[in-house]
């Protein structure tokens, strides 16, 4: 469904990346938060693959980096918070 954005050439002493799940995705995965190594992570898609190895991103799932809507190709760096969630239904 998606590929790694690229191999990393960044600092091997990377901090971790916080991963958060919300709503029905949180229930499906049975987890609300995780932490993954930032080593080799370049983009949002990389974060998903590391946090949920072997599991395709479910269709329509949205992502955010540091509280801003993001696409799968958007860059992720050490210490970032990356969130995955279903389409919103507020209001």
């Amino acid at each position, binding site marked *: 469904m998606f590929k790694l954005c690229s191999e990393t050439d960044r600092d091997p002493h990377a901090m971790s990346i916080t991963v*958060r799940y*919300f*709503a*029905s995705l949180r229930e499906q995965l049975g987890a609300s938060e995780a932490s993954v190594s930032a080593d080799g992570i370049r983009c*949002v898609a990389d974060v998903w693959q590391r946090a949920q190895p072997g599991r395709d*991103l479910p269709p329509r*799932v*949205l*992502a*955010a980096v540091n*509280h*801003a*809507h*993001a*696409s*799968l190709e958007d860059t992720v760096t050490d210490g970032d918070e990356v*969130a*995955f*969630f*279903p*389409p*919103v*239904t*507020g*209001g």
Partner: protein
Amino acid sequence: MAVVLHSEPLEPFNLVNEHEGGLSPGSFGACALFVGTMRDFNDGDAVTAMTLEHYPGMTERELALIEDEARTRWPVQDSLIGHRVGRVEPGQPIVVVAVWSAHRQAAFDACRFLMEALKERATFWKQEELQDGRRRWVSPSPQPLSPEGRGA
């Protein structure tokens, strides 16, 4: 401009009244307001309660960005967004959006924009409790998301 998330029941008209008390009297001519309230039915089922999940930090940020955008598009003097989080019962308000402006048209347009943008972009998720005990996540409306909303 203000964004307020409430885990206790919202009193939208009191909230708006109080906020307006902080504005300079005589300086604005129009206030447009919308209140969304939980209904006791949805998709043909009786709904007994609903839980509103949000993304602390991101939700407030998105709502503030939406207010900023309204201000760039219309002569908005002030605006207020209040939204419930947590468990809500039928008849309880979920959301209130208010816009003050010198001009009627701007107040109406900006209020409607805030409400539509909030529904499209702000990170809230509703889970319903049905009369038969089932719980289900509310599906998003079929309308397309804006470019900002298409995250993945």
